[in-house]
């Protein structure tokens, strides 16, 4: 069965992306000459997927990998750029992007132009833009899918990247395509999610909108029962216009599509969506919607399969069956989603030799090499042993972490260091426990680790104990990702960061766990009569824990205000007055009573545009840390 190569399953970048990329160099030069203010420059670089890191002067570049599909040539390009301009380690994100870290500002244009040559871009990788359009990582090869949604995800990105408006939304817009109800793509927590269905033999989608993790997390709501595949651009354009028109640009904390949905309610929102689609149908779509590639079931294979396999493939968690029984997908477990550039080049080459010359990135921060004929699995596995890291799962659960406070300015806790501590602890005991479970860690409430979608989730936070700050994680369980029946995880308690690996070890040693038993375990670990000194230090850090200030830059002092005993709304009034007196960008820590005060004051201040950094529980009261933004 020789199928055409995967030439069609490629994200064709519109001309605008090329123009914007070339213009970026000029913007960097102007900024470095002092002709562009930091704020103005931020507006240029954020939509180009360039993030500043805690280490001043260095940047992270987030490369979109449409539908999680990358060719070997593209992987090589990214690896080379990481080696030359970055820190030599490439990271796979929970939205199937690939990240290059520690790039000096002056070199960011070189990276962007290098990416362009391989047909790659970081445009829309960040900022208030339409982000990477993701798909199930096994689209086209998964035995369970209705049909491959990779062509649709690619076409959608190609369509939306043409427009200026796609980078100038009130907030970012995350779009995902799921090939079936199991939703490995995470469409039920996307701003816009498409679930593949067939109706009368026609390919189409159920459309969901308004999902999201992070602040005010919520599962998406169905706004359209069925759109034919050629209508997806119209549907997306309609939703994008609603976000553009109704997203609250004056308050960044209430500007996502899910906030618009909450304001209108699902019925009114659906009505507005239908009206918008009507109007688009009458006026016609702006720009030509791209053709959706006819998906071959196998994304381009190079070799003919052997007529008969000599030995059956060894069952292994790293090996996944494909639609076509002659082929398998090999999963490469990347600890913390990181892969050294040299290894990535090796993987690219191996994918060409043994597979179809493509690699898939997954929402679990792993890589897949698809289309491996059964007979070649052994040879391939042997080749992979020459990689510098161990990419086999060894039966352990996958631990997914956001970048965390070591590099991310928004992070509270060192989530990657916790992930490592958990993996190390679990590796010391025989692999067991709930099969295929994932542990997801976010270092702060922004949820980049998608902890509300994991089997066990941890969200970084801080507690004041005995007058000192202690890094903690709220524990979440019970998530269910499935079309129409999705459920976000719920909190069952909080544990000191230092107790989490042991907790995880116990969970996985005990095997099948009920929710009750898990709650008991949290309680068991939560009660600590005497607190060891190292609890006040986060994993991987020697310094006393501070949720703000892991950066190397000098910090301005944290202002303090004690509003204990002050009732609502006077406490809000006084908090506002205090905030008005501190410089913009400074941090203030406010003590409040438990109950209504801590429930109301941070929310009200957040709604008015201040940045709520952390809400902490202390022994007999609560405390909120705020950065003044307005």
């Amino acid at each position, binding site marked *: 069965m020789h199928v055409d190569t995967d030439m069609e399953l490629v994200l064709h970048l519109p001309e605008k992306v090329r123009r914007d990329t070339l213009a970026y160099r000029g913007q960097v030069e102007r900024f470095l000459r002092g002709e562009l203010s930091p704020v103005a420059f931020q507006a240029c670089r954020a939509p180009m997927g360039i993030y500043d890191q805690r280490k001043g002067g260095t940047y992270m570049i987030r490369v979109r990998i449409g539908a999680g599909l990358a060719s070997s040539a593209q992987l090589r390009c990214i690896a080379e750029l990481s080696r030359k301009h970055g820190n030599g380690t490439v990271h796979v994100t929970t939205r199937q992007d690939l990240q290059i870290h520690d790039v000096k500002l002056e070199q960011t244009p070189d990276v962007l132009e290098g990416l362009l040559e391989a047909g790659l871009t970081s445009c829309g990788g960040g900022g208030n833009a339409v982000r990477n359009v993701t798909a199930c990582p096994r689209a086209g090869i998964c035995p369970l899918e209705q049909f491959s949604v990779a062509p649709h995800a690619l076409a959608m990105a190609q369509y939306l990247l043409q427009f200026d408006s796609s980078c100038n939304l009130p907030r970012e817009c995350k779009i995902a395509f799921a090939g079936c109800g199991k939703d490995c793509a995470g469409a039920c927590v996307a701003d816009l999610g498409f679930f593949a269905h067939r109706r009368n033999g026609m390919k189409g989608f159920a459309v969901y909108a308004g999902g999201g993790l992070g602040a005010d997390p919520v599962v998406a709501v169905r706004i359209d029962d069925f759109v034919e595949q050629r209508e997806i651009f119209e549907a997306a354009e309609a939703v994008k216009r609603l976000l553009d028109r109704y997203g609250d640009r004056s308050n960044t904390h209430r500007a996502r599509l899910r906030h618009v949905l909450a304001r209108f309610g699902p019925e009114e929102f659906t009505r507005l969506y239908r009206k918008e689609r009507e109007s688009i149908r009458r006026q016609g779509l702006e720009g030509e919607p791209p053709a959706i590639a006819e998906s071959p079931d196998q994304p381009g294979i190079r070799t003919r399969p052997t007529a008969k396999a000599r030995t059956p493939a060894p069952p292994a968690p790293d090996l996944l069956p494909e639609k076509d029984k002659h082929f398998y997908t090999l999963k490469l477990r990347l600890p913390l989603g990181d892969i050294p550039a040299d290894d990535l080049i090796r993987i690219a080459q191996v994918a060409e030799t043994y597979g179809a010359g493509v690699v898939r990135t997954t929402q679990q921060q792993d890589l897949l090499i698809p289309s491996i004929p059964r007979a070649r699995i052994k040879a391939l596995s042997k080749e992979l042993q020459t990689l510098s890291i161990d990419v086999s799962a060894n039966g352990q659960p996958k631990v997914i972490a956001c970048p965390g406070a070591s590099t991310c300015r928004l992070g509270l806790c060192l989530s990657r260091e916790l992930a490592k501590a958990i993996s190390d602890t679990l590796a010391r005991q025989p692999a067991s426990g709930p099969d295929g479970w994932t542990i997801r860690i976010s270092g702060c409430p922004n949820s980049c680790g998608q902890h509300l979608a994991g089997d066990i989730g941890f969200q970084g936070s801080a507690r004041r104990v005995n007058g000192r700050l202690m890094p903690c994680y709220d524990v979440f369980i019970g998530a269910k990702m499935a079309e129409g029946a999705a459920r976000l995880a719920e909190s069952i308690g909080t544990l000191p960061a230092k107790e989490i690996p042991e907790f995880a070890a116990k969970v996985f040693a005990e095997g099948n766990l009920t929710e009750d038993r898990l709650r008991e375990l949290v309680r068991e670990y939560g009660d600590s009569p005497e607190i060891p000194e190292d609890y006040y230090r986060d994993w991987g850090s020697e310094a006393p824990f501070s949720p703000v200030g892991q950066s190397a830059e000098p910090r301005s002092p944290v202002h303090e205000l004690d509003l204990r005993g002050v009732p609502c*709304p*006077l406490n*809000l*009034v*006084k908090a*506002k*007055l205090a905030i*008005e007196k501190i410089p913009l960008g400074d941090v203030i820590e406010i003590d409040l009573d438990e109950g209504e005060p801590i429930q109301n004051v941070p929310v*009200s201040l957040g709604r*008015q*545009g201040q940045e709520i950094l952390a809400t902490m529980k202390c022994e007999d009261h609560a405390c909120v840390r705020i950065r003044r933004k307005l």
Partner: protein
Amino acid sequence: MPLSEQQIERYSRHIILRDIGGAGQEKLLASKVLILGAGGLGSPAALYLAAAGVGTIGLVDGDEVDITNLHRQIVHHTADIGRRKVDSAKERMLAINPDVTVQTYDIWACADNIREIVRQYDFVIDGADNFAAKFLINDACYFEKVPFSHAGILQFEGQLMTVIPGQTACYRCVFRLPPPVGSAPPCGQAGVLGVLPGVVGSLQATEAIKYLLGIGELLTDSLLTYSALTMEFRKVPVERSSDCPVCGPKATITALKDEGRVTCNKKGCKC
């Protein structure tokens, strides 16, 4: 000056508003608004500006409280009949909010005295009940470059507009001259719904506060008309007139003049 504990409580509902905050409230306390006329329009304006904590409020009225005023001029009470209007109003304003300073001018504003008073204030509210006074106020505010709120009421209808002199349409851009004497009856003859100036005067206070805080969109280059019987509000766009006699490039009015009667205090007439 920082807000005292009492002020924080008194103005808490202002401070909570994102567009006001402590900084906005302090701005109000440092502001000065002049109200010309302590009658139908001036009453609610005076009460609300005092409540809001506008630091200095000037009140100009040369009249005394009459029983016929009381159905609409809610700053005055029955016990005030016979009292000077400015005294009665000041007492009521301070009772609501002792924080504010009320500067009273127990006089009729006219061409000789109005400019001197207007120039001390940040914003002016036209609460006058006759056309000559309204034109006088417009011209004085133009010469002193003080923004003001114009309003007029009769029977069941009212109108309102805000003027930033030299920038937006002024009263004369829209209404060139006073109407011929006798053509537009005063309230005493035509009658007026008591609550009507309550609504319109409150809108004037709103414009004053917005101007002082620098928030929202002012009712400039717009004439708001209100019909109480139909509950219709209409915003009619108006423009600066290129041949406005006072604010246009070929202005003919370069000094104030009392046009006709500034006040309808014909002996025995009680409007």
